[in-house]
């Protein structure tokens, strides 16, 4: 009961709270359906209760905000409903249609106690958000942008956005890492949340990091798996979708779920249903490169072998032909030579015979010529001998008479005969004196006469005057 103090009626706080509670419970007797956005779920794991923060926005501005409570049992039931129908848990930022009662607590104040949330409405809202993202991207003309990028022949270098411990990531690495063909991939993990409210910012943060070193990568692979079909609404987010659409290298997704494609998957360069399928897709790309190379190698070997075999055959045939032609020519030449030899032989015989005849004729001529010559010469010799004899006789006769004459002259000149004619020879010391100079007075001279020798002494010497 209120206190009275002078003219003032004073209530305690509890009395006010109880009054509000009484008024409200009288006014709001039943539960009613409300449409609002759940700004924050405010789930307290310890108690299992939630205290969702409800807002209504107009052009992005909050125009109403009311606290609410969602007790543990209601939360579990509603959340299961959501998981079943939306494939997403109750989470921050969803639009919802909920059934509530107005409650007032003396301590906690006014709140809406949520007793049910219509998952179908939220589903529609999510679908609407998804469609909005799609149409925005289409209006901006970037919906196909990432798809139109050229995927390298070998998407070998990957920036992987995933959760280190997730099964999807492990499966993916197992397949590309342990492939039996020895294909080598290079990958770096950029860890990120992939579901729930913070996934959008987390993925965008890693995309920004990758963008800085984008030259080192061929593709970005977003890999999620093992999380079931829950919490995929982040992949319909406009900001994230836009980042992916505008990403400078192809973005590949292997998000792993069975429900409708999310926007990110629609705009990704390639969407594989699961990480495993994405790994197979990449391996297939390698096959598409490797198999033709292998085929090319086989074709080359086969073709080159064939060309070489054909060429060898051609050379052999040519050689065979050449041989036969050559043999033919040799044979022909051989015949020709034999023919020539025969001709030569005949010709030679003929010539020889002719020469023999000519020789015989010459011999005959020589013999007869010689005989004639000999006869003539004999006659000449005879004649010559005869005239020689005659000439000799005359010469001899002439010489004989000359000789006689000489003999006579010589006889006259004999000192005996000379002495006889009165001449003498005077000697001095045994030597004939030819000049008076050789003699001096009183020399003994020896004078030889025809019949003896005189010895005399020189009395005087008279020089004959020169004539």
């Amino acid at each position: 009961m209120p206190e009275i103090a002078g003219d003032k009626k004073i209530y305690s706080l509890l009395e006010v709270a109880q009054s509000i509670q009484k008024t409200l419970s009288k006014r709001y007797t039943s539960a009613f359906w409300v449409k609002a956005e759940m700004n924050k779920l405010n789930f307290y794991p310890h108690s299992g209760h939630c205290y969702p923060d409800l807002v209504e926005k107009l052009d992005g501005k909050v125009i109403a905000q009311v606290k609410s409570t969602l007790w543990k049992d209601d939360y579990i039931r509603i959340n299961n409903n959501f998981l079943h129908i939306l494939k997403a848990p109750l989470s921050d930022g969803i639009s919802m249609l909920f059934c509530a009662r107005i409650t007032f607590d003396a301590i906690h104040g006014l709140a809406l106690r949520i007793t049910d949330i219509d998952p179908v409405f939220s589903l529609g809202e999510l679908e609407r958000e998804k469609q909005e993202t799609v149409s925005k991207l289409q209006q901006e003309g970037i919906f196909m942008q990432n798809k139109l990028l050229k995927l390298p022949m070998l998407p070998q270098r990957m920036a992987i956005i995933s959760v280190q411990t997730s099964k999807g990531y492990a499966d993916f690495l197992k397949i590309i890492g342990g492939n039996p063909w020895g294909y080598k991939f290079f990958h770096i993990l950029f860890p990120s949340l992939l579901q729930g409210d913070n996934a959008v910012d987390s993925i965008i943060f890693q995309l920004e990091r990758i963008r800085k070193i984008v030259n080192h990568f061929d593709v970005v692979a977003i890999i999620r798996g093992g999380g079931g079909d829950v919490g995929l609404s982040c992949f319909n987010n406009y900001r994230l979708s836009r980042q992916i659409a505008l990403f400078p290298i192809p973005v590949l997704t292997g998000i792993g779920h069975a429900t409708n494609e999310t926007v990110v998957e629609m705009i990704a360069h390639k969407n594989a249903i699961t990480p495993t399928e994405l790994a197979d897709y990449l391996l297939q790309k390698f096959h598409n490169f490797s198999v033709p190379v292998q085929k090319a190698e086989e074709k080359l070997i086969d073709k080159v072998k064939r060309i070489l075999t054909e060429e060898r055959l051609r050379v052999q045939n040519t050689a065979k032909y050449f041989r036969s032609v050559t043999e033919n020519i040799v044979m022909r030449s051989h015949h020709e030579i034999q023919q020539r030899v025969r001709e030569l032989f005949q010709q030679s015989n003929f010539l020889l015979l002719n020469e023999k005849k000519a020789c015989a004729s010459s011999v005959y001529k020589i013999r007869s010529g010689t005989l004639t010559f000999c006869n003539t010469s004999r006659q000449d010799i005879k004649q010559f001998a005869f005239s020689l004899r005659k000439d000799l006789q005359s010469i001899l006769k002439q010489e004989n008479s000359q000789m006689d004459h000489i003999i006579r002259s010589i006889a006259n000149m004999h000192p005996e005969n000379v002495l006889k004619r009165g001449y003498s020879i005077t000697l001095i010391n045994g030597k004939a004196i030819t000049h008076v100079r050789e003699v001096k007075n009183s020399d003994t001279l020896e004078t030889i006469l025809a019949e003896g020798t005189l010895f005399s002494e020189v009395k005087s010497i008279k020089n004959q005057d020169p004539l």
Partner: protein
Amino acid sequence: MNDSPTYSEAFDELQQIVSEIEEGQISVDELSEKVKRAAMLISICKSKLSSTEEDVNKILKDLEGESDDH
């Protein structure tokens, strides 16, 4: 002739050589040269399949370097 083709250039050139040989456009005189070239291209392609030249540590260092600037 490009002496250090990228793997995709090597792939295209290899296909080109194979089709030339298949269509009989290559004489026996050129054959040895072409086969040598093809062998080189095949080895480029095969080595690309089984190796990468990227260095994780260097990339991460680049990434840190970039981050420091911001």
